[in-house]
């Protein structure tokens, strides 16, 4: 097969970068920061090259690079992208430099290790999105835990140790069960295909032929692992802790990319590998998703801590994504993918903006603030846009994703009921309530706190450089979504086709 090394270069950039960081002296903080930024920018440029040479009409995986890695187990280093993975790769490489830039002032302790962890984390995230060998995927999935664990544990807030350990163990629990399912599938493949394999493209043929009752268990193991990561109600309890305790950069990456690994896993593995079970369990999962949408929104409403509010809003937003995936129509799945990106942008921006306030006042409780529009007009405007995008105002990105998901689930033959859509739509209204209410309390009115007048300064150039690119995409996706929808269309169809072939006319 023709080999294309582009993705390997993309993966190698942060690997080499993170190793080089180790050779800097601890005291050279500025230099390390610039170096980290430069490395992540190089990765971004490479991902753009991938984007521009990507053939959007080809449903196959592209830029495939395959090298035998562990011959005795027939495991290869096998990477490639389709539209869905590409858009998430772009999200990753786009958010990483911005996050690094945003920590310029916030992280003073052990900058060297922080930059190392961030770059190492980028390797893990990229690896998850481009792996075409399920074993390789698992390696990246697990390896990514370590840097995130350190980021929360070293640079986090007061209860950081509890949050870091909880994050680690929750994820590990799900992924180890997935490991058993991976091995079982590979062993099963050796009876049907004649060789032990973890190659995803081979397993696409094997997965649907697994006997029905066992397939349910395998689906369950994969699903549990991804649902913990998403996180789907009721497995979400690690998320608020991790978000609140993590430093701003950690929260942005966590919300922006890490949660997407879960939903990506659902699209890439759960649906095409176990289509029969996916269809069978779709209604139950969708019920959980809808509960998550409403529950997340209601809990957000009563939060007094801004970061916690944004964290719970993630539970709500990701519920939409899961609903979109399990509605299994082209619109809803495409909507889900675009909503993954949207959530990464809007919630990422919200976390960054909460971080901006926190850096100045070291307070996150809503009650502390009030009337800051007079003090920091620029900040208030930017916060307004990010918030409206998160609510799903038409013309901004959130609307596109949610709208597609709602339409798709409305006419979904798998769900076959309007109730999902009706309840999910209420989540949009709740989102408006809790976000606007927070905005009103923080931004409008009289300045309630004298301290604010001394401490609060408006956004500086560096912070604007961080936030403006995100705003550009928020508007771009909102106004002209086809740029992004075209990218995922063919890949989505091909995944649904795989599901359709094995489940009869159910999807027609």
């Amino acid at each position, binding site marked *: 097969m023709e080999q294309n090394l582009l993705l390997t270069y993309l993966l190698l950039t942060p690997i080499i970068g993170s190793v080089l960081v180790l050779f800097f002296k601890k005291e050279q903080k500025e230099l390390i920061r610039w170096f980290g930024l430069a490395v992540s920018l190089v990765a971004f440029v490479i991902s753009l090259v991938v984007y521009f040479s990507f053939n959007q009409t080809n449903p196959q995986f592209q830029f495939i690079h395959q090298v035998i890695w562990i011959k005795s187990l027939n495991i290869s280093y096998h990477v490639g992208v389709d539209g869905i993975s590409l858009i998430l790769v772009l999200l990753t490489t786009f958010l990483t430099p911005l996050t690094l830039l945003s920590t310029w002032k916030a992280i003073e302790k052990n900058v060297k290790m922080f930059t190392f962890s961030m770059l190492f984390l980028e390797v893990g995230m990229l690896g998850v999105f481009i792996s075409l060998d399920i074993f390789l995927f698992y390696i990246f999935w697990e390896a990514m835990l370590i840097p995130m664990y350190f980021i929360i544990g070293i640079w986090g807030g007061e209860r950081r140790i509890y949050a*870091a350990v909880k994050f680690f163990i929750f994820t590990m629990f799900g992924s180890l069960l997935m490991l058993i399912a991976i*091995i079982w599938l590979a062993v099963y493949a050796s009876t049907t295909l004649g060789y032990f394999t973890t190659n995803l493209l081979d397993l696409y043929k094997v997965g649907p032929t697994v006997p029905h009752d066992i397939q349910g268990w395998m689906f369950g193991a994969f699903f549990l692992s991804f649902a913990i990561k998403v996180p789907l109600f009721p497995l979400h309890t690690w998320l608020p802790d991790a978000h609140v305790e993590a430093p701003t950069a950690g929260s942005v990456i966590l919300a922006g990319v890490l949660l997407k690994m879960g939903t990506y896993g659902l699209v890439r593995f759960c649906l095409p590998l176990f289509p029969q079970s996916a269809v069978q369990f779709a209604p139950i999962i969708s019920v959980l998703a809808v509960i998550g949408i409403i529950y997340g929104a209601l809990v957000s409403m009563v939060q007094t801590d801004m970061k916690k509010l944004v964290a719970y809003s993630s539970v709500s937003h990701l519920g939409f994504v899961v609903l979109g995936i399990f509605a299994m129509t082209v619109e809803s799945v495409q909507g889900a993918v675009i909503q993954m990106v949207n959530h990464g942008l809007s919630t990422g921006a919200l976390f960054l903006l909460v971080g901006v306030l926190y850096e100045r006042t070291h307070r996150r409780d809503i009650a502390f603030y009030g009337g800051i529009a007079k003090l920091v007009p620029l900040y208030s405007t930017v916060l307004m846009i990010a918030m409206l995008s998160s609510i799903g105002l038409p013309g901004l990105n959130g609307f596109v994703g949610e709208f597609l998901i709602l339409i798709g689930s409305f006419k979904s033959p798998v769900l076959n009921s309007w109730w999902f859509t009706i309840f999910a739509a209420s989540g949009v209204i709740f989102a408006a309530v809790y976000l606007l209410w927070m905005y009103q309390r923080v931004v409008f009115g009289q300045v309630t706190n004298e301290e604010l007048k001394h401490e609060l300064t408006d956004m500086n150039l560096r912070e604007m450089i961080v936030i403006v690119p995100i705003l550009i995409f928020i508007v771009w996706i909102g106004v002209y979504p086809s740029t992004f929808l075209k990218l995922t269309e063919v890949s989505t169809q091909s995944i649904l086709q795989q599901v359709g072939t094995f489940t009869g006319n159910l999807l027609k």
Partner: protein
Amino acid sequence: MKRERGQIKNDTNMPQNNYEYFLLMPQLIIAVGIVLSVLVELTTKKSEQILPWLSIALFVAAAFDSILNINQNFVLFGGMIEVGGKPAIFNFIFNIGAALVVLSSIDYLKKYGAYFGEYYILVQSSVLGMMVMSGAKDILMIFMGLELMSICFYVLAGINRKKLSANEASMKYFLLGAFATGFIVYGIALIYGATGTTSIQNLVENFVTYSSNIIFILGFVFFLVGFSFKIAAVPFHMWVPDVYHGSATSVTSLMSTTGKTAAFSVLIIMLSAVFSGASNVFRPYFATISALSMLFGSVVAISQTNLKRMLAYSSIAHAGYMAIGLAAGNIFSVAGIIFYLAAYVFMNIGAFTIISIVEGENDSKTDLNSFAGLNAKSPILAALMALFMFALAGIPPLAGFFGKYYVFISAIQSHLTWLAILGVLSSVISVYFYIRVVVFMYFKESVEDFKIQISPYSLTAVIITALLVLVFGILPDTLMNVITSVLH
């Protein structure tokens, strides 16, 4: 596997007599080395300075001699001992492990108060015992090797006779070890009574016939119980925490790694009929001790605050994971167990050596609190310890992960998925106490103010083990190919 057995059975394949000793070179190197060491000890006053380097040279020579002659797979001395093949891999692991332990002992023993030459002679003798065990083709050879190894360990555990904890460890180890030996001897007697032979070759070939004989099965189970003591599996684990805790850290690192490997090598030899296709009558036994060990080891380790004790319970859990392979009993599980053992040896030697570096006078500073803020005191030690903890927890891509991966594959191949699921569940539990060490090193401030004297020798040993853990993790085929080449 068939081909290899055929090769051994075929008498014409046996080498000429004068060639036999040459093939036995690794064992001879150590045996002659022991005599030399005794002479050095008798004649010079500075034996404690010469012997470590002599031992390392002997171990390295023996290790490389065995691995270079891995293809010279023969049975020598009328079916008594096997050379090359599987034993060669085990000999390599024993000798490299022992060399690393000796390297890390050089400065540690001064601190511990056991700065004398006998230590090294005892280590050499124990390794000779292990090599006899791993190559045994006759049950009596197993017994000889086992006793040689164990008696050295009993003495090593109490090497500093002035320390109360070491005396206690030594005594407990000896009493329970002797008890286990009793089981083994009784088992051997029953097996001999039932079959009239002590030749393992004979037992393997007629395993199916013999296994209808209840006396044979009973003897075999006695034998397995005895060895379950040696591999530290639940419910035969009672001695482990106290002995690992009370002994000198370098001794603990030797007996918890190579000692356990030797015991597993015997189990693999005795069960080779099962591994080459006979139905596994002992599956319920191994599945039970495996499940118990994994869960018990992981759960109890959570409540430990002393690192040596914590690693003792972790070693019980690891015995459980490896026993999954014995329960699965297919050819793949042999490869898996051997890989796991190699990974385990290096991970544990690394972790124990770091403990021995941090350890202060009189067994102090082995608590979790002593590791608080280690990253600020010595970033390199903290990073390496974190590596070993993640490896022991089975985070990919480190050696420990592949050990588990291979064993779980063999379990699923043998339709023991439930055991594999129990395995991952206890892995999740064990993650908690492994990463707690990382929490203390990185996330907490130092609570005890003391300076760490990093011995260059120990650090070298740690770095070598860390590299091995990384290499076996990133390129597991380097080791796996060697293992599978002798199995097929």
